[in-house]
């Protein structure tokens, strides 16, 4: 049983169906998950300064709770949550000073046994591409899907250790397993402008538009990503384009959900808490 950590943005922006689709897919593929009994925002961004410890606290609480509830790992859907939780976990296990101070604040001990997992990682390691392929009910043949990784998912390479940061291929393999054609294009690991969506829109728009245009030029019919903020930025930057010029942006779960026919198989699924 994996502990499930929804994160603030995934839970709040249900219009993308990220959570619903992800949980349905996991059910079809036989991975059991259970939401943590209590969780709070991971902090949204990992503090790069060495002398700030308070931003680590909320993530450590989630890691600690996973340990207490005896889950095999902590599953996240959002790249940012994954990035923050994994780096905080890494820091707690490698920085004695940080561990001491955080435990002082929390007045509690964290053993450091929690493993932070991303949906993509679970699909790659615990399910496998072959298994996904066997579950495909409606093959996506003819679809040309561009995959966008973004930054938080990949870097820093030596701490994330999930994918090759310069040439990742996991999402392409998944897309291939679904029967669709992955589109390789430049900038798929470049930043989309991230949090500048809220203060310097022109920065995030120009960075995102570059990515969308490159994907379109390479012949993509849709673009998939695993991060709610990337999805927002990639969609928002196209707001001045004509409708037929727009490239549809989806979560990585959307094509999987469609290919597995998960909507029919997961009808008895319980409604989400909110």
């Amino acid at each position: 049983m994996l502990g499930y950590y929804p994160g603030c943005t995934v839970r709040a922006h249900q219009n993308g169906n990220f959570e619903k689709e992800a949980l349905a897919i996991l059910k079809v593929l036989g991975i059991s998950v259970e939401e943590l009994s209590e969780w709070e925002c991971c902090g949204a961004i990992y503090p790069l300064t060495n002398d700030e410890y308070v931003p680590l606290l909320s993530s450590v609480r989630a890691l600690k709770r996973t340990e207490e509830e005896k889950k095999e790992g902590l599953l996240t859907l959002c790249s940012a949550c994954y990035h923050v939780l994994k780096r905080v976990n890494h820091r707690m296990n490698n920085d004695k000073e940080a561990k001491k101070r955080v435990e002082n604040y929390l007045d509690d001990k964290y053993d450091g046994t929690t493993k932070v997992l991303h949906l993509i990682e679970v699909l790659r390691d615990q399910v496998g591409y072959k298994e996904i392929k066997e579950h495909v009910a409606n093959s996506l043949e003819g679809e040309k899907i561009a995959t966008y990784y973004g930054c938080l998912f990949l870097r820093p390479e030596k701490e994330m250790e999930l994918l090759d940061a310069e040439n990742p291929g996991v999402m392409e393999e998944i897309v291939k397993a679904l029967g669709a054609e992955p589109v390789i294009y430049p900038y798929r690991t470049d930043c989309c402008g991230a949090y500048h969506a809220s203060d310097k829109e022109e920065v995030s728009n120009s960075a995102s538009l570059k990515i969308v245009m490159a994907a379109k030029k390479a012949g993509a019919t849709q673009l998939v990503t695993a991060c709610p903020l990337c999805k927002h930025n990639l969609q928002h930057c196209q707001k001045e384009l004509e409708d037929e010029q727009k490239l549809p942006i989806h979560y990585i779960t959307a094509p999987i959900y469609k290919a597995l026919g998960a909507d029919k198989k997961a009808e008895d699924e319980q409604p989400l808490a909110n």
Partner: protein
Amino acid sequence: MRFPTKTASIKEQEELADIIQKNVKDCYQCLKCSAGCPLTEHMDYYPHQVMLLAKMDLYKKVFDSKTLWVCASCLACSSRCPRDLEPAKVMEGLRAMIIRKRGEGNVEVVNPKGVPRQALISSMRKLRR
């Protein structure tokens, strides 16, 4: 870029080293950070120039630059830095110095409607006191 001959006091240098636990003087200007930065078109100094200015103790120029507030901490530079100096971390340290003591850099969130909360929380944490 023209460099004045007189350099600033050593204090800022110590402060920065304390915040990020790195020595910017190790930078050997390979330009990998600037070459891979996706947001350079909005910057006045390129990331390697910020590193150079910090290395030369020209903190006044760094604190006045736009670059620090354009950096989105995507860590492309940090991941590729052959000296493991993590330019994104240096930027964060410099931002922290401004935000903590110099009272500037509090950016306004101009477009909160429809922006995912992840972006709002991140920009509040990165760019405001």
